[in-house]
């Protein structure tokens, strides 16, 4: 769990030696970034880009033409939609007050659930009243206008005349689609957490729900905001909520480290996003989506640096959505309480990157290589994370890597041009992944923080855990994407487009995706067969995964009234060595939420069935009614990417269905063999792999997550620390003691002649200086008075 590395001196230098050349190369290439206009090379590049645009234009112009259909109108009467943001804000403030008052009841949870539920209802009413895209202005925010009144000739390039970002909403299909599941899941998970976190009732309980409310507020700004700065506000806001919640158990150093890591890695992405926003502002002269996309719909491609916009935006997306190279924070983020993992680190926040790219889809068409880059990053991440997931023993970590992997699928979908597929997968994934996390949280809660899949077995036979085991099964089946599950429909939409697209090697990514899907089925059911099936046996955890040590103190009044403790022996802390451990099954709120989520996960497949029946579906309609329309097949272009595509001489749909059956059978069957029927075989296989020097590296590398953390340590963390140390020394010894005090000594030597030093050198020259100033002043006064006298 805690991968804190022993920083021995030798390793430090070796890593540094490894890292420095790479760091230098990176810096050099960063400084060499073609920001345009910097000499002839850049001019050439710009010319190439122009040609590329011309070649690309045929494909994208058609897609962009659809954009004109979804440009919003100003809607003055809709300001009540602001309550979607206002309610969580009020809840956050109230939770803060409760925290100050150290309230010892569940009021924070009640307030939060009501606020989030209210936000959901408001969103739903908004959805009911929705007809076409609108913008709603709520408040002025950042306004700086220095235009002299006249505008320069070429309209779109009047950048640098004003900086306006208001707190306003951009409501279209994409927004509503996203907000519906964000607020819905947020409410459900808050209900779950009201029971799950009850051992912390008090200041910490308020802190938890306050941070959850802040998260929903920020997520609302991110998704509903009408301009890029407001998106950035939400972007960083969810980051800080995530920081506070990962570090919720702040007594644990690993949680604090994970929180910090998440924030910093996100910040790296954020800088990319910020530069992307600056570039957009410079090229399109505005920050609000309306102006930007209107300009694009009118045929503008911005200035000569516009082609860089997507690359910087995608860096932000990769940070928030844990893609290569910024993915290592997400597995560590599992240090947070499980409801947080479910809400923030699986269902909602991490999909913000997908939202960003879907929202700014027209900007990603500005450079022909932008979307393929997204596809390759996504496809590679999906594969890499799945391989790591194969060898993890911590239940939550397996699901964390599967989240990274599934996010990779979403980016693959965006990259191959189906924003519909990506958004659909976000939607289905939100349900089944939240379900998986919450059910693993229920297991963890019941077994005193045990998460090791080798230490719990046969959960479905343990009384009280039936709901957990079978809802988890639904989640696993959906994650494994067995045919006709929601996960199947969304994932296959992505893979279908990838496989039938023969540009940029996307088909190759499609096949890699299919292989990744096999791995997914295997590692998902590895968990389920280990934990839920098989003979009953369990070892309770040390309660440190889920609960801070104050949980021990709170154990006396731990409210488990419905559960009889044998002989008054409390399980917290010492039960596992006494052997009297009794798992305590979840109660109504937890089971209820799990059941609702399972039903939701099943229902999430409905758009897929509608699609199968040949018609359009709800998701397609919603995404098509937004700026992501260019990525919705059947709407963006007449030909359609995947409508009647053929693959290997067969109807692609049918073939993919067959392949998916095969994948499920191979993956789940493999998992059943190694982890249910013959559990020894898995160990034997691993041992035999380890025994051979040819293959021994593989399990080791997988178990150590491909050593990416170590690589980053060497590449960034240690050099930065070393550099910091070095610079601090330079600052204090060379600059301060050497140069500055050296200069300071000169007047002191001079001062010796005039003033006997009585209390140290510095005192002396201060007096000399004061005297000098006095002399200057007197001289000045005299000269001035004399001159004045002469003048008058």
């Amino acid at each position, binding site marked *: 769990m805690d991968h804190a590395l022993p920083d021995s001196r030798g390793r430090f230098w070796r890593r540094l030696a490894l890292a420095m050349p790479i760091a230098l190369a990176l810096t050099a290439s960063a400084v060499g970034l073609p920001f345009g*206009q910097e000499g002839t090379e850049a001019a050439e590049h710009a010319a190439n880009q*122009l040609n590329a645009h011309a070649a690309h234009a045929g494909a994208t*112009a058609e897609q962009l033409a659809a954009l004109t259909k979804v440009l919003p109108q100003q809607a003055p009467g809709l300001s009540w939609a602001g309550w979607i943001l206002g309610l969580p804000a009020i809840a956050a403030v109230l939770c803060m007050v409760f925290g100050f008052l150290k309230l010892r009841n569940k009021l924070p949870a009640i307030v939060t659930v009501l606020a989030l539920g209210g936000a959901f209802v408001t969103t739903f009413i908004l959805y009911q009243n929705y007809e076409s895209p609108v913008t709603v202005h709520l408040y*002025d925010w*950042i306004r700086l206008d220095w235009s002299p009144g006249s505008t320069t000739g070429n309209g779109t390039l009047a950048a640098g005349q004003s900086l306006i970002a208001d707190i306003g909403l951009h409501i279209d299909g994409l927004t509503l689609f996203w907000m519906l599941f964000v607020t819905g899941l947020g409410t459900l998970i808050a209900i779950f957490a009201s029971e799950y976190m009850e051992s912390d009732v008090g200041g910490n309980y308020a802190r938890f729900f306050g941070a959850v409310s802040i998260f929903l507020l920020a997520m609302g700004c991110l998704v509903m905001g009408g301009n890029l700065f407001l998106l950035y506000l939400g972007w960083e806001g969810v980051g800080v909520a995530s920081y506070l919640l990962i570090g919720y158990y702040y007594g644990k150093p690993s949680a604090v480290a994970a929180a*910090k890591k998440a924030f910093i890695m996100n910040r790296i992405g954020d*800088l990319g996003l910020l530069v992307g926003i600056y570039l957009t502002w410079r090229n399109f002269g505005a920050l609000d989506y309306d102006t930007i996309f209107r300009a694009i719909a009118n045929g503008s491609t911005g200035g000569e640096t516009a082609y860089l916009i997507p690359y910087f935006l995608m860096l932000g997306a990769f940070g928030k959505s844990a893609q290569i190279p910024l993915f290592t924070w997400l597995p560590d983020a599992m240090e947070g309480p499980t409801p947080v993992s479910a809400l923030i680190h699986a269902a909602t926040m991490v999909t913000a990157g997908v939202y960003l790219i879907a929202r700014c889809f027209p900007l990603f068409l500005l450079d022909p290589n932008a979307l393929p880059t997204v596809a390759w990053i996504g496809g590679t991440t999906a594969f890499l994370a799945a391989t790591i997931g194969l060898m993890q023993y911590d239940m939550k970590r397996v699901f964390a890597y599967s989240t990274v992997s599934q996010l990779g699928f979403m980016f693959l979908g965006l990259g191959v041009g189906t924003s519909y597929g990506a958004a659909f997968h976000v939607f289905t994934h939100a349900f089944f992944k939240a379900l998986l996390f919450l059910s693993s949280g229920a297991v963890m809660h019941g077994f005193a923080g045990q998460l090791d899949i080798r230490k719990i077995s046969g959960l479905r036979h343990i009384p009280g855990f039936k709901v957990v085991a079978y809802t988890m099964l639904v989640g696993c089946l959906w994650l494994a994407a067995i045919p006709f599950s929601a996960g199947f429909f969304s994932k296959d939409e992505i893979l279908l487009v990838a496989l039938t697209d023969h540009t940029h090697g996307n088909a190759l990514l499609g096949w890699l995706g299919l292989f990744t899907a096999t791995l997914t089925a295997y590692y998902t059911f590895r968990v389920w067969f280990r934990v839920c099936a098989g003979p009953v046996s369990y070892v309770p955890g040390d309660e440190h995964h889920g609960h801070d040590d104050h949980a021990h103190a709170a154990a006396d009044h731990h409210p488990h009234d419905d559960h009889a403790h044998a002989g008054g022996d409390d399980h917290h802390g010492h039960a596992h060595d006494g052997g009297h451990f009794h798992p305590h099954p979840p109660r109504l709120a937890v089971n209820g939420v799990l059941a609702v989520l399972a039903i939701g996960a099943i229902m999430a497949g409905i758009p897929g069935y509608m699609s199968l029946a040949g018609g359009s579906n709800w998701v397609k309609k919603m995404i098509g009614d937004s700026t992501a329309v260019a990525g919705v097949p059947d709407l963006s272009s007449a030909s359609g990417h995947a409508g009647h595509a053929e693959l290997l001489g067969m109807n692609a749909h049918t073939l993919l269905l067959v392949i998916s059956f095969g994948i499920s059978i191979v993956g789940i069957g493999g998992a059943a063999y190694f982890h249910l029927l013959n559990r020894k075989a898995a160990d034997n296989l691993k041992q035999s792999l380890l025994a051979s020097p040819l293959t021994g590296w593989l399990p080791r590398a997988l178990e150590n997550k491909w050593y990416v953390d170590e690589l980053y340590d060497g590449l960034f963390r240690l050099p930065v620390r070393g550099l910091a140390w070095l610079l601090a020394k330079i600052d204090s010894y060379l600059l301060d003691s050497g140069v500055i005090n050296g200069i300071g000594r000169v007047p002191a030597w001079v001062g010796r002649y005039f003033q006997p030093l009585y209390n140290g050198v510095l005192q002396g020259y201060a007096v000399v200086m004061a005297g000098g100033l006095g002399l200057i002043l007197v001289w000045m006064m005299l000269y001035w008075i004399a001159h004045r006298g002469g003048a008058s």
Partner: protein
Amino acid sequence: MSSLPSNLMAAMLLLPLIGAGIIAAAPRLLAKHIAVGSSLAVFAISIMLAWQFPEWTSGRFWPNNSASELALGVSFTLGIDSVSLLLILLTTFLTPLALLGSYTSVAHREREFYAWFLVLLSAMLLAFMARDVIAFYVGYEFTIVPMLFLIAIFGGDNRRYAAIKFFVFTFVASVITLSGLIYVAAARAQTGLPWSFGLAELQSFAQSNDFSDTQRYWVFVAMMIGFCVKVPFFPVHSWLPLAHDQAPTGGSVILAGTLLKLGTYGIYRVALPMAPGAAVEIAPLLITFCIIAIVAISLVCFAQKDVKRLVAYSSVSHMGVAMLGMLALNPVGVSGSVLYMINHGLSTGALFLCIGMMYERYHTKDMDKLGGLAKKMPIWAFFMVFFTMTSVGLPGLNGFVSEVMCLLGAFSARPSTALEWPGLIGPRWMLIAGVGSVIFGALYMLYMVGRVVWGPLKEPGHGHGHGHESSHGHAHAGGHDNHGLPPDLSAREVVTLAPIAALCLFLGVQPWYVLDAIGPSATTTIAAYPEAVKNYLRTQQEAEAAKGSLAGETTPEITVSPDATSATGGRISSLSDGSATSHLPISSATATP
């Protein structure tokens, strides 16, 4: 009616001095109450002044009448515009809170402490109000003396050295500034005009033909030396960490909150409008220092062990961002820079208050000895994390708007004569500065919070751990460690911090109030700069072209096309951009039939 603003301003200047006088005569125990009372009265007057102020969005000065002469003919002209009024409000807002935060920490020679504090307030206000360089200088210089005593009497173990260093640094540097100012006035008098130290007069003279480029250059250098030390700017910053380290909490709050702003305010008000040509010539050097300050000093912060030193170094780095915005020389950057001054004053001042509250309880600022204080002091932890978030520029709080505007200003300040507001920075340097301020800035603050606020609880051992602190003399005065303070924040301390937090939130959510006020003033201040930058760029291009044609004679295969001449070779070329044909109308590429 026109005398009303002058009366209000005179009242603001005199009231603290009267308060200081009363403190000197009053009983020791009343000192702090009198100080807080009179600073609150000054705050009230400043609110009245702001209420009366008619020029919020015009960029003009008020009152606009010239000289109200005092004895000896020094024209003590007072006048404020929106920017100086904002900084005055910041000063009058922070001072009572800094005093309130010092209630229990100052336990000896209270009368001196509070009296000097009020003198400091008066001096700062004078500097912000002055329209006459002598009046400005008197205020500017007079801030040094009270601060010297605050550090030297009430500071930590090494207080004498810190105080003297602070004094010598700022004093020597500001004398150089003064000499520059006097030089301009003298040169002006040489031409037969009557003597005047009026800022507007000097500035218009410095830009006239009677003043040569060389003179302008040296005058600007002289002024910048003083202001840069005060900011403090990168190579001359080393007095600040030491001064903060040793200063008492209240002193640190004012030092970081408003005293440093005198430097940037001086640059904004006095130096920049004085000599645009010279400023542009020196700008590349200053920008280099800015970027070094932002990146390198952020890393230096990361290596600190002492919380207060860390925040002090962060001030150096943050003021580097403010300076970068100022040197972007365009409205976004300069407005952002002014906003940055206010925001930095609030968040860093509040961080110093928080650290002071921690120090009062544990008598150490060493991160190795502290940890997990959230467990002991949850309310304190809330404020600490909150102000950390303002400091790292979390959107929705005040720091974000100014940081993002400074960086955006730097980003759009490309050296291109085709731009309306050309500058000398551009996207690449902004990216490097962004790494420093956005990533490293978060890195060291979270590192500090991660150690002090979060983590397992670690408190310095009681009874023996603070023996070395006894040189304070007052630390154990009553035989009790914590001055009778509760484990978590007392109501007084919450009252100290809460207004700042509220203001941070307000400025984060509704910054346009302030931006509306800053914008016109900023645009006026740098009105001469687009032309100056363009001239500079043209000169550079001509020099390059001359070099290029020279090279063309010796190596005939190089043909010099108009496009290629612009950016080749040299350090300047990496900054300069030069291609006048920048905005290609490539929209035709995707025009649909």
